[in-house]
């Protein structure tokens, strides 16, 4: 793989990889580091690229493995990135009160997704936030497609229950 091919095929998915790493680590700086490492690893394994069916899924798997290694390596402290949750754009908000309310709501959604078991959370995020197909998710996580569907169904069910609590009782 030449550098032109690398730039044409890998660089466009960089943002998606970053968002994935950011969600796993919850920290912008660490996510940036992981992406640098992942890109270097992809470059070093460029010979394998010809055999791959899905380049994006492969890159996401590399990113995920590196992020999980980082989490394991130093008892990574996952932080709820409240600041980021508050940065949610509120385009149709008219006043600061509504903006604050919206930010609070986003923070609660962020919290309830983060409380899901790791597997559920990752599958939900890969599907609903990164827009990956079931097949791609199965490749990233190295599991069966049927398992992806089952876990996604369970994850959405849990999220729905939490959302109902949030909606009806205002609790998380």
């Amino acid at each position, binding site marked *: 793989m030449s550098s032109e091919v690398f730039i044409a095929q890998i660089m466009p998915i960089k943002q998606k990889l970053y968002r994935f790493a950011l969600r796993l680590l919850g920290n912008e700086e660490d996510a940036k580091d992981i992406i*640098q490492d992942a890109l270097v690893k992809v470059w070093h394994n460029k010979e394998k690229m010809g055999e791959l069916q899905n380049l994006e899924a492969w890159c996401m798997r590399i990113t995920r493995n590196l992020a999980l290694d980082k989490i394991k390596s130093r008892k990574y402290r996952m932080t709820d990135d409240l600041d980021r949750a508050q940065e949610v754009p509120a385009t149709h908000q008219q006043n600061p009160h509504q903006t604050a309310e919206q930010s609070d709501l*986003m923070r*609660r*959604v*962020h919290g309830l997704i983060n409380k899901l078991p790791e597997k559920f959370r990752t599958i939900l995020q890969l599907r609903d936030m990164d827009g990956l197909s079931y097949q791609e998710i199965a490749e990233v996580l190295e599991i069966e497609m049927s398992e992806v569907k089952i876990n996604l169904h369970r994850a959405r069910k849990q999220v729905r229950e939490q959302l109902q609590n*949030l909606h009806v009782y205002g609790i998380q």
Partner: protein
Amino acid sequence: MEYSKIRELLDKYWECETSLAEEAHLRDFYAHHHGELPPDLREAAPLFQYYHAAEADTMPELFTDGPAPWETATVIVRPFWHSWMKYAAVLLMAAGLGYSVFSFQQRRDDPQDTYAFRDTYSDPKLAYQETQRALQILSKNLNKGKEQMEKLSYFHDATEMIQGKNN
């Protein structure tokens, strides 16, 4: 009616039967909807709004994104007076050189050196007398030295005789 379609899509979504395009449609609907929603559609609104907002996360620039410093040839143009030290050094060098040349010339033309090559007597007779006197003084002093040397010579001969070298 838009709402009935959304309702239908939501039911499919919770059952994991939606396609990626349908899920994108749901996200889009909730992100851009203004005003009150029917009660049954409100429940999922925060979730899809959250998904939509997460798409806005962009990666800060990596150091590899920009060109390396050596790839961009930046020409720094400084005003003339910013590099004053350069000009001051040249001026100092010139002043030093000029001074040394000047002092060398002065030393060369120094009148003290020229006395040696100038005549001191205008009268040849007087000059001859003076020269004779000077030579006599020189000869007298040389003779004084010679007398001492003769004594040394006797002493040397005597020493050799004692050692029996002359025999």
